[in-house]
């Protein structure tokens, strides 16, 4: 067998570039799996460690003012092992260097560090001195983004009280990886979170002997839903907002999304590569068995068994698989470490160490080698079944016959080289089908790599330029009389003010319930309005509600249906309301209604909780300086900042992922095109040499060889485009968070990149093979009979 192994190695060396192209595809598949799962492992490991270290809570709730004695009632809820009541309030603060005031969230530090939940991790500086009321620790991401250094003093206005703190430490908190704001992406510079000793916070907020935020830890196996219901019941008299579990905690959700997306990538992409690689193994080895049939016959004539004579081809496939697996493992480990490092600042763990997922590697390796072997099966079977007598006779010339196309007039205008191309396609339909399939998969991946960019633009355009047309938005700590809100119109830079009222709530229909945001808008509002699918503003009709696309889909309702609404604020009114429209938007579980209807349900006056503003650009600084002095304002958002942070955050993540897609898709296109061209050249090098001898120039020969490939590449294009659209839609579904939709949009530039990369990969492969036509040894090719 040693001689056969030597033959195997020499065959492999002879076919090295084709085999390398196949190994490359396997390596791509393995590397995606290893990269994604290694990164995921690093993130999950750190998340578990971080949550344990900081005793991250299981249930979170807020209320207006709850006596501390109620904490013991919460502690008696079945399964609760720890209760951590805190004083917490929000306000606005001016930060030197920032145009717009930032939101400040002040939280009391626990007195009993052991019982505390959601502990912070000090990464620089120190904790405040417990006896001092003017020291605070700030969220590190805020300090970094707002360029605030330790030792600086910051003033904030909270509940009409101005407080000034010296920042003595920088901290990270699992609870504030992502600080909720009106932006779907972190707006770190404008979202300050501060922790100060309890007494100082209580005094500042007038929360002596009371708390406004509470976290609970549950014993393993406890029903979270039951505990949440108990918390809601206990806190309801104290202005409690609905409690929620860890799964709904926004920072946790933010990290989970990221972790899950890696899993989506690892499950969707590698199989594509392995299937294409297996198909190529099948083609290449099939061709090899064909050319080596005399040798196989000879081996059998010498007394080798069927399996012995055929096993080499399976070994070859396995070796290619192993080469791909080793390269893919190394590449995946390296990429995983790179991506982990890239994600570290984004995921905001105190530490993040790269990991290598051996289990993912083992599974990917086994699947890849099995795929390669599966690809070799047909070739091995053909080799095993060859009878020695038949094998040692020369192959009968390939028989051609006239095809369907020749019935048509167009046939007569085709020249002979083109006829050769067409007949070859008709003669080897399965090879043509495999080529088209492989190439269309690569184009589909390329299209899939481009749509997300277009989608993000569409989301931004819809959300911030068409449905919402405000330039700035301010929020009040507590609901204010609408007349007071109108006074904002007198501030500098204000061109238009529209009050709105928001509150959390629950909506039920068809036995489904969703936690939603309710937005009450003015009739005929210009700065924020729900739009229908055609982009027309939807007017409110009576008590009707307009639901966001996502909410309508989750509840399974359409205009004309009714929904049950519970506003979890104030006196917690409930009402059954008709659905009068669906607002076409990509994000959010939101219900819109006329603000006066909202106010009638609440029965607490003509109130607003926020205002949408249209500001002139040149005086925005003056405007923000004035509202920083208004204690009732606790939040301010700017469209431009929001869009910019959304774009930069999305771009940071997408660019990496899309670069992968692009590279991998090109690898598939190249791998398929190169192998198909090499097989075509091997099949027809004799024909090519004959044509060269007959006086055809190399380029004319290349036309016949590459023309077929280019034709197939063009045929594959519409299929690839359709496949890409399909795949993009599948990715949209896979990537869609519960409250976030993407849409399928590809810009002309996106199409350009996809098609250029695709044709580029095909042409490079064709060119590499074509240069062999120039180098054909005419004499030796013609002398030997195939």
């Amino acid at each position: 067998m040693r001689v056969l192994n030597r033959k195997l190695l020499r065959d492999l060396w002879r076919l090295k570039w084709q085999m390398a192209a196949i190994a490359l595809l396997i390596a791509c598949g393995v590397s995606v799996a290893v990269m994604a799962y290694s990164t995921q492992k690093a993130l999950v490991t750190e998340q578990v460690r971080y949550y344990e270290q900081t005793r991250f809570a299981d249930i979170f709730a807020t209320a207006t003012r709850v006596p501390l004695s109620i904490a013991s009632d919460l502690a008696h809820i079945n399964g609760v092992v720890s209760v951590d009541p805190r004083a917490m309030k929000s306000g606005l603060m001016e930060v030197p260097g920032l145009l717009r005031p930032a939101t400040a969230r002040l939280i009391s530090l626990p007195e009993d560090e052991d019982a505390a939940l959601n502990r912070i991790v000090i990464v620089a500086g120190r904790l405040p001195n417990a006896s001092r009321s003017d020291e605070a620790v700030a969220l590190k991401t805020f300090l970094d983004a707002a360029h605030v250094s330790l030792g600086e003093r910051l003033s904030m206005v909270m509940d009409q009280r101005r407080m000034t703190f010296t920042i003595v430490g920088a901290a990270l908190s699992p609870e504030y990886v992502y600080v909720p704001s009106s932006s779907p992406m972190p707006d770190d510079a404008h979202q300050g979170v501060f922790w100060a000793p309890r007494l100082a916070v209580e005094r500042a907020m007038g929360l002596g002997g009371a708390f406004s935020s509470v976290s609970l830890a549950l014993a393993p196996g406890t029903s979270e839903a039951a505990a949440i219901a108990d918390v809601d019941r206990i806190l309801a008299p104290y202005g409690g907002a609905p409690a929620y579990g860890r799964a709904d905690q926004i920072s946790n959700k933010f990290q989970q999304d990221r972790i899950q997306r890696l899993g989506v990538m690892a499950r969707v992409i590698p199989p594509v590569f392995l299937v294409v690689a297996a198909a190529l193994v099948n083609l290449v080895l099939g061709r090899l068995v064909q050319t080596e049939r005399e040798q196989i016959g000879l081996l059998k004539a010498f007394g080798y068994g069927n399996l012995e004579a055929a096993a080499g081809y399976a070994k070859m496939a396995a070796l290619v698989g192993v080469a791909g697996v080793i390269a893919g493992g190394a590449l995946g480990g390296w990429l995983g470490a790179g991506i982990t490092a890239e994600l570290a600042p984004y995921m905001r763990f105190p530490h993040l160490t790269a990991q290598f997922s051996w289990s993912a590697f083992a599974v990917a390796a086994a699947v890849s080698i099995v795929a390669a072997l599966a690809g070799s099966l047909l070739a091995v079977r053909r080799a095993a079944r060859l009878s020695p007598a038949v094998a040692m006779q020369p192959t009968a010339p390939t028989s051609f016959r006239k095809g369907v196309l020749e019935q048509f007039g167009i046939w007569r205008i085709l020249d002979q080289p083109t006829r050769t191309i067409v007949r070859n396609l008709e003669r080897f339909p399965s090879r043509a089908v495999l080529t088209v399939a492989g190439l269309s998969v690569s184009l589909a991946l390329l299209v899939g790599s481009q749509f997300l960019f277009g989608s993000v633009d569409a989301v931004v355009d819809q959300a911030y330029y068409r449905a919402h047309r405000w330039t700035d938005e301010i929020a009040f700590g507590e609901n204010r009389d609408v007349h007071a809100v109108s006074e904002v119109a007198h501030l500098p830079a204000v061109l238009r003010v529209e009050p709105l009222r928001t509150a959390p709530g629950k909506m039920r229909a068809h036995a489904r319930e969703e936690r939603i945001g309710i937005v009450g808008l003015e009739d005929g509002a210009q700065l924020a309005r729900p739009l229908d699918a055609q982009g027309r503003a939807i007017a409110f009709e009576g008590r009707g509600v307009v639901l966001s696309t996502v909410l309508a889909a989750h509840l399974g309702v359409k205009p004309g249906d009714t929904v049950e609404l519970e506003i979890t604020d104030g006196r917690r009114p409930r009402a059954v309301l008709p659905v009068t429209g669906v607002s076409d938007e990509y994000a959010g579980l939101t219900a819109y209604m006329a603000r006066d209807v909202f106010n009638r349900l609440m029965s607490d006056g003509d109130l607003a909780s926020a205002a949408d503003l249209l500001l002139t650009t040149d005086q925005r600084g003056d405007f923000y300086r004035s509202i920083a002095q208004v204690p009732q304002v606790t939040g301010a958002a700017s469209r431009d900042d929001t869009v910019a942070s959304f774009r930069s955050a999305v771009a940071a993540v997408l660019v990496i992922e899309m670069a992968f897609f692009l590279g991998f898709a090109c690898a598939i296109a190249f791998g398929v095109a190169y192998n198909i061209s090499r097989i075509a050249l091997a099949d027809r090098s004799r024909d090519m040499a004959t044509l060269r001898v007959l006086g055809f120039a190399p380029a004319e020969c290349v036309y016949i060889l590459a023309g077929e490939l280019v034709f197939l590449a063009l045929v594959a294009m519409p299929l690839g485009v359709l496949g890409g659209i399909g795949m993009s839609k599948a990715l949209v579904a896979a990537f869609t968070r519960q409250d976030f939709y993407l849409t399928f949009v590809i810009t002309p530039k996106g199409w350009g990149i996809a098609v250029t990369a695709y044709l580029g990969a095909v042409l490079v492969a064709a060119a590499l093979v074509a240069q062999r036509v120039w180098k054909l040894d005419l004499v030796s090719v013609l002398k030997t009979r195939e």
Partner: protein
Amino acid sequence: MDESTFQVRGLTKVYGTGAGEVRALRGVDLDVPQAETLVLLGPSGSGKSTLLNILGGLDRATDGQVKFHDRDLTRVSDTELTRYRRRSVGFIFQFFNLMPSLTARENVELITEIADTPIDAAEALAMVGLSDRMDHFPSELSGGQQQRVAVARAIAKRPELLLCDEPTGSLDSASGVQVIEAIVKVGGEIGATTLIVTHNAVVAEIADRVIHFSNGAVVDVQANTAKRSPRELSW
């Protein structure tokens, strides 16, 4: 002697270097007169195919000169060699080398489409007696018929030069005779200079001149005084 198609002087071809060096041609001198039929006879490995390849513009000499009329083929570019093959040379191979995916007629049209003043493909096939097989694919033709298609293909461009490398090597005697007959007939009709390389001495009987080759050199050139018709041949 009439005007020469080729003047070959001191033609040398060496393959490999050092210990692996093989001298295929050792200073060949030869004049090939226009419109004659020449047969190159010699044992396997004597260098006759190498000479044919160099004359046909498939291979380059290591040293020496090959003048095709006034042009030295040893000094022209690859593009010019391609043009030379395209315009002036008709090739006939031992293994026919037809495009399997094209019919007999289309195989000939492959050439007529790129030639300057071609013979119509149907006419060329008629000249080799294949009018009734024009729309058959190579796999549907016998060896002799395939080689006659190759002859039709070779002469369809009206080449000045018809180069045949062992044209009967893969055929039985009867088919071989038919092919030689076709070559002589159509070669004569278009006035081509015909060079047939063979180790079959019988074929030499149809030649105007027989060139004996041995060990990379011309050892003898004989004018054939008793030229026979191809029909009279048998082996």
